[in-house]
C-alpha cells in the first residue's frame, strides 16, 4: 500500500474534471458552493478581488477558516500557500487539506525557488501562463495545472490568452523532430523527458484547468470550449448579487458548455456579475500573473 504516489495525486485532479472549484471565505459560503454542485472549494481569507483592494502582503488563510470549511463540507477542500513558502504548505497539509495551491494570488515568499512539491503527500495545483511554466511546475511535482489568467479582475482575456498559448505550444511540440525537442527543452527551461511526453501524448501529463477572471456562466463555457478540463471561479461567485443562483448556473454551463440554449437559460436574471477591471488599467506591480517564473 502506497500513499502520495504520482498516480494517486494526479488521479485526484482527474476526478475534478468537468467540475467547478469555488473560492469560499467561510463555512456558510462553503455550504452554498457544495449545494450548488461545486466539485471542491478553495478556503481563503479573502477572494482575489478583495486582496487587490486591501493591498499589503497576502498570506495563507487563518487555519481556523480552513478547518471550519473542512468541517462543513464532504467535497475536497483546497487552500493556498505563497509561492516558495514551504512551511505554509506543510502547515496546510498538516490540517488535512486535500489539495494545495502554490498561488500567485498571494504575495510570493521566494522570488527564485518554487516549493519542492515532491516532498508532500498532498497534491499541488500551480498556475501557468505558457507550456514552459506548466512543465517547470510539473517537474517540481505539481499534479494539476491551471491558467494564471489575471485573478480578481472578472476579466477573462488573460485566461483565454494563457489557455490558447499553452494549447498552441502543445501542438507545436507534437510536430517537432527529436533533435528539435532537445533544443526546445533548453529554450523553455524544462526537462527533456517531460517535453517528450507532451510530444508523444499531445497533452500535458496532468489535468489543466482554467482560472483567473471567470465571471459568468458563458466565461466558464468559453474556457471549456478552448480545452480546459474544468474551471476555478474565485471572486466571480461571492462578489455577484445572487451567489447561490450564480454558482448553480456556472456548474451547469461548465457541464453543458456546448449547449448554448441551456447557457442562455441559466444566464437569465442572474443580476449584476462582479464589476471587473480592464487589464491595461493595472500597473505592472498589480499584475499577479507575473509572479513566479
Amino acid at each position, binding site marked *: *500500500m*502506497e*500513499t*502520495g*504516489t504520482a*498516480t*494517486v495525486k494526479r*488521479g*485526484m485532479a*482527474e*476526478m*475534478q*474534471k*468537468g*467540475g467547478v472549484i469555488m473560492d469560499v471565505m467561510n463555512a456558510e459560503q462553503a455550504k452554498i458552493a*457544495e449545494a450548488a*454542485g*461545486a*466539485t*471542491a472549494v478553495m478556503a481563503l481569507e479573502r477572494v482575489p478581488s478583495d486582496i487587490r483592494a486591501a493591498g499589503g502582503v497576502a498570506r495563507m488563510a487563518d487555519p481556523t477558516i480552513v478547518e471550519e470549511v473542512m468541517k462543513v463540507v*464532504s*467535497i*475536497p477542500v483546497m487552500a493556498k500557500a505563497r509561492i516558495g513558502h514551504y512551511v505554509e504548505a506543510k502547515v496546510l*497539509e498538516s490540517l*488535512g*487539506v*486535500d*489539495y494545495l495551491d502554490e498561488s500567485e494570488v498571494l504575495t510570493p515568499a521566494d522570488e527564485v525557488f518554487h516549493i519542492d512539491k515532491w516532498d508532500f*503527500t*498532498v*497534491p499541488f495545483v500551480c498556475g501557468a501562463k505558457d507550456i514552459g511554466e506548466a512543465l517547470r511546475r510539473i517537474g517540481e511535482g505539481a499534479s494539476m495545472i491551471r491558467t494564471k489568467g489575471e485573478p480578481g479582475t472578472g476579466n477573462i482575456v488573460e485566461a483565454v490568452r494563457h489557455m490558447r498559448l499553452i494549447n498552441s505550444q502543445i501542438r507545436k511540440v507534437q510536430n517537432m523532430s527529436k533533435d528539435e525537442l532537445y533544443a526546445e527543452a533548453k529554450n523553455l527551461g524544462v526537462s527533456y523527458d517531460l517535453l517528450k511526453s507532451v510530444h508523444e501524448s499531445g497533452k500535458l501529463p496532468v489535468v489543466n484547468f482554467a482560472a483567473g477572471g471567470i465571471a459568468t456562466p458563458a466565461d466558464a463555457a468559453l474556457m471549456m470550449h478552448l480545452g480546459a478540463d474544468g474551471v476555478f471561479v474565485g471572486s466571480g461567485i461571492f462578489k455577484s448579487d445572487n451567489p447561490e443562483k450564480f454558482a448553480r448556473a456556472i*456548474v*451547469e454551463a461548465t*457541464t*453543458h458548455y456546448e449547449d448554448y440554449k441551456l447557457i442562455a437559460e441559466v444566464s437569465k436574471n442572474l443580476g449584476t456579475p462582479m464589476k471587473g477591471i480592464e487589464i491595461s488599467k493595472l500597473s505592472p506591480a498589480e499584475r499577479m500573473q507575473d509572479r513566479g517564473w
Partner: protein
Amino acid sequence: MKIGVLALQGAVTEHIRSISLAGADGVPVKRVEQLEDLDGLIIPGGESTTIGKLMRKYGFMEAIRQFSEQGKPIFGTCAGLIVLAERIDGHEEAHLKLMNMTVARNAFGRQRESFETDLVVKGIDEPIRAVFIRAPLIMEVGSDVEVLSTYKDEIVTARQGHLLAASFHPELTDDFRLHQYFIEMVEASRTGVQ
C-alpha cells in the same frame, strides 16, 4: 457493442480509453436520449454530490432506473458506486438506489490517506493495481449481492446481477481487466445469458 460513460462530471475520458483498450466502443453520455442505443453504462469517479445533483436536474434518475430494468449492465466506480447504492451511511439521501448495499463516503479519510495497492478480485486471475482516491467503501450488502474483493476486511468490489461497483479507479491504470470483466457482462446480457 456500445458502452456509455455518464459525462456530467468526472473521469470520463479515462473510462472511454479503458473501454477501447478492452476492445469495445465507449461514448460520453450527457443527455438521457443517448441511453437508448447503449448496451451498458459506466458511472465514473468524480464528486458524487455534483454528479447526483446534475443527474436529478436532467432526468437521469428515472432514465437510468429504466435502463437497469431492461437488464442492461451498469458499472459504477468510486463516486459511481455511491450513486448506485441503496443506502448511504449518515444522513445523506441515496441516489439511484439500485444496488442492495450501504456505502460510506470518504471512508479511508482525506486525500493524504488516498493510496494504491494490489488487489485480488474474484473472477480475475492475477491481482489488479487499484487506486483509491478519497474512496468510499461498502459497509454491508444484501444476500443478492456477491462480494468480489475486500481490502483489509472491508468490501471494495461487489456485483448484483447486471450491476457492478468498485470503490477504486480501474480507469487510472493501463490494466483494463475489470473493464474486460464488465464488457463480458454486457455481452452476456446482449445474448440473453446472465
